[in-house]
């Protein structure tokens, strides 16, 4: 409860700040709000408080709340510069906080209504954020696409919720879980769950419901893209994991096969299409589809390890993405484009940027000793222990494809000469952020237990 209040109140305060001429306070206030949310979550650890039967702040919810807030904290450091160049900043800060509030609801719901509300709070804020660069056509296009596709997905989700309500007579997931074994006829339940999977699949950008991702990622302002790829993705996958692993494990026979299809398609399409991209943002968008596949693999193993490996995977992926998008943002600001050739010669001109980018990409590619390797390792071993050898082999082969396209950027940075001049520079805050993020990826690679066994 305290976490929810802190986040939403910070959102409201930042919105009001402009009115009272307190713009300078917005950034510190935002940092403070996030820090307080983290502290409350630590304080509430193991208490598992219930909130009016609608939400439960169990360790899963708190763990992901901490993860979301920390990601948002890093993200704020990254995008501070972007915001400060804008005229109206406060509404963007507050929208970010409202999105986080939605994310918090999405990781702590015990009621399907709350699931839907959380997703909507998050999504509506994001629709606006994606279009926040009013003068840029592609930003507008991105927002519009995102809105259309997103509301379509919400429709599916709502339909699924309605069907499940129809057959079980309740929105409360705990009651639904209890009644699952006693259902006379499960055909409606199956249809409802397929609808839920489709709706959630849209939100996390899993193939074959991924078509919005590349355009939206590319069109939205880079910091907003980073927010989508990190905090939003974390919240959406966590919501999915909570729904299926915590509440529907009894009927896993129904949804496991569908999940398998989604996983295979996400890995295949995400990786193969990413190979053909020439734009770094688009490449990262497709790679995020493939990562959605790996994240869904954690849900696929349906056991206590699922939560842990998902938390670890999302945190590691988010940290890597923050670094990658930070560098993409700086390049784009400097050269006006995020095509891969814009990275040429970065290693000579700005070694720090090149090295952080390399660390982030190697981590996403899953090369030891970086954290991304441990994340994939946990996922693969958990699935392997359930006996799905062929899926793991397929995933390993696909991560090898991943190496191919991530290295396109690395090769551009280290091998090619820069043809057009212009120095890419990071300010002090950004430098600090890049160092923190790279160090975190190394540290979590060597000592994954700092995060892994929390839940």
């Amino acid at each position, binding site marked *: 409860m305290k976490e929810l209040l802190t986040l939403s109140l910070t959102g409201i305060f930042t919105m009001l700040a402009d009115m009272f001429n307190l713009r300078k306070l917005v950034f510190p206030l935002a940092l403070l709000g996030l820090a307080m949310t983290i502290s409350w979550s630590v304080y509430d650890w193991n208490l598992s408080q219930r909130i009016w039967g609608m939400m439960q702040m169990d360790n899963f919810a708190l763990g992901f709340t901490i993860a979301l807030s920390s990601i948002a904290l890093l993200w704020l450091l990254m995008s501070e510069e972007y915001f400060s160049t804008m005229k109206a900043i406060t509404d963007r800060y507050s929208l970010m906080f409202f999105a986080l509030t939605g994310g918090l609801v999405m990781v702590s719901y015990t009621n399907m209504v709350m699931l839907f509300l959380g997703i909507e709070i998050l999504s509506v804020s994001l629709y606006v954020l994606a279009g926040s660069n009013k003068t840029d056509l592609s930003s507008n296009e991105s927002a519009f696409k995102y809105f259309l596709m997103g509301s379509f997905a919400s429709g599916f989700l709502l339909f699924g919720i309605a069907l499940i309500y129809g057959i079980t007579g309740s929105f409360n997931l705990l009651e639904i879980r209890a009644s699952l074994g006693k259902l006379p006829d499960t055909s409606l339940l199956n249809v409802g769950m397929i609808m839920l999977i489709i709706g959630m699949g849209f939100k996390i950008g899993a193939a074959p419901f991924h078509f919005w991702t590349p355009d939206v990622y590319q069109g939205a302002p880079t910091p907003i893209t980073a927010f989508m790829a990190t905090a939003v993705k974390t919240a959406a996958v966590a919501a999915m994991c909570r729904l299926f692993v915590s509440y529907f494990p009894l009927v896993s026979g129904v949804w496991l096969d569908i999940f398998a299809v989604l996983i295979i398609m996400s890995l295949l399409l995400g990786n193969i299409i990413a190979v053909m991209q020439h734009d770094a943002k688009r490449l990262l968008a497709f790679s995020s589809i493939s990562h959605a596949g790996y994240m869904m693999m954690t849900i696929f193993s349906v056991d206590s390890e699922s939560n842990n490996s998902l938390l670890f995977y999302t945190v590691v992926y988010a940290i890597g993405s923050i670094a990658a998008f930070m560098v993409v943002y700086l390049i784009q600001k400097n050269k006006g484009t995020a095509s891969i050739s814009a990275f040429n010669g970065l*290693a000579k001109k700005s070694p720090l940027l090149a090295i952080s980018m390399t660390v982030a990409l*190697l981590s996403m590619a899953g*090369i*030891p*000793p970086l954290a991304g*390797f441990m994340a994939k390792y946990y996922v*693969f*071993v958990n699935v*392997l*222990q359930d006996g799905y050898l062929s899926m*793991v*082999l397929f995933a*390993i082969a696909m*991560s*090898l494809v991943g*190496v*191919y396209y991530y*290295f396109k950027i690395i*090769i551009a940075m*280290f*091998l*090619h000469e820069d043809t057009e001049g212009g120095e890419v520079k990071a300010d002090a805050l950004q430098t600090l952020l890049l160092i923190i993020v790279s160090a975190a990826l190394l540290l979590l690679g060597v000592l*994954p*237990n700092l995060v892994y*066994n929390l839940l």
Partner: protein
Amino acid sequence: MITVALIFFPLVAAFVMLFIKRQQAELTAFYLALAELGLFGYAATQLSSNPTALSLDVNWLPFGAHFAVSMDGISFLMVLLTTLLMPLIITASSSGYYSNRFYALVFLMQMALVGVFTAMDGFLFYIFWELALIPIYFICLMWGGEHRGRITFKFFVYTLAGSLVMLAGLLFVYLQTPGDHSFLIKDLYTAGQNMSDEQQGWVFWAIFIAFAIKMPVFPFHTWQPDTYVTAPTAGTMLLSGIMLKMGTYGLLRWLMPLVPMGWKMWGNTAMILAIIGIVYASLIAISQKDYKRLIAYSSIAHVGLIAAGLLTMRTEGITGGLIQMVAHGINVVGLFFVAEILMERTKTHDITAMGGIRGVAPKFALLFLITLLGSVALPLTNGFVGEFLLINGIYQHNFWMAAVAGLTVILGAVYMLRSYQSVMLGETKQLTEGFKDLDTNETTVLLTVSVLVIVLGVFPKPLLDIVAPAVEELLQVFQSGLIK
């Protein structure tokens, strides 16, 4: 604890190098490498008197991965090779072409290599194994020659693919360990040896392929010649002198004792591949005009013989293989350094364009000859001891295999001596007229190599004594798995 220091001192050195100015980089790197060698010297004094001081085993990750390192005779020999070659490679690459970052990567590489050779835990081994790939990739990418982007990437993906298959194999064995599972080598041995014959066969290939790519063994060698030629000479020395031994060492430590029945079923097939590689690479080497490429192929031939000897799982074959790993490491570094000297002065690798260098550079001619003879395995050079034991081991295993593998002695002499003849002897050509003799740095490197060639050829006994007990122990573990 000393082993841990040996692993992490290079990491510290890599950090230090980041903050050293370019002008002082070479010298600092050299001293740091010497310090590591000194540390190793201290470890050597403990090997027989106090072996427990060399090992450490602490829990690392809760799923049964330990930070377990230790050094027996086999590991000792490999670490000796690594720490010994490192100062040589650094001296050999002190032409001012490389920056401090290059040496940082070299030290990072050394850390991973020492880790690979001393890890006694499957997971740790894998991490170090992969870690070794990253610095060498960047060394080749940033300082390499033509087409380096494409070629080094092929190398990277090729080796990474092999490693991932190996990881799958190791994981399979790991999941057979009882209880909460463990990656410790002795637990893996037990679990691996208890698997059914068919499972062992699968695991054998999964792991063998990774090692075969690294060495490389025919038909997994296609990345190697291009990579060796394109890489900067220091990178080639690292690749051929030390990194290649990760594969041969792996065969011995992480394959045969792990799945003895797999070896029984497939060992001969693997040996035949290795022996095909010997003849095939030698024949290509004979027809090479590019000196660096010639040595690259000769390396495939030599390592094929080593692999075949190790795969016999006989005392002679293994001991010979180990000695030959050290000898080959030393010789190939010398030969690639010669390639660098030739390239620097004549701007070409084409041996037919050269000639008569002996007349203008007598010092170079002598030291080159000694290094070359070591590689040809003339008696009283370091190459002879290993090659003799290897062929002896293969002969006890199978006469025909030994007969074909023995061709390497003749073919090796052909391509090596032919290259010497066309580079050093004959008429002095316009290209080689002004060939300067060796400067101090170059003399130091080649002289050290030559001394090692002769000393290890005349007194191989200390090395043989060091490895003997470790080889015995390894064979015992292996045999116990076969009897089951």
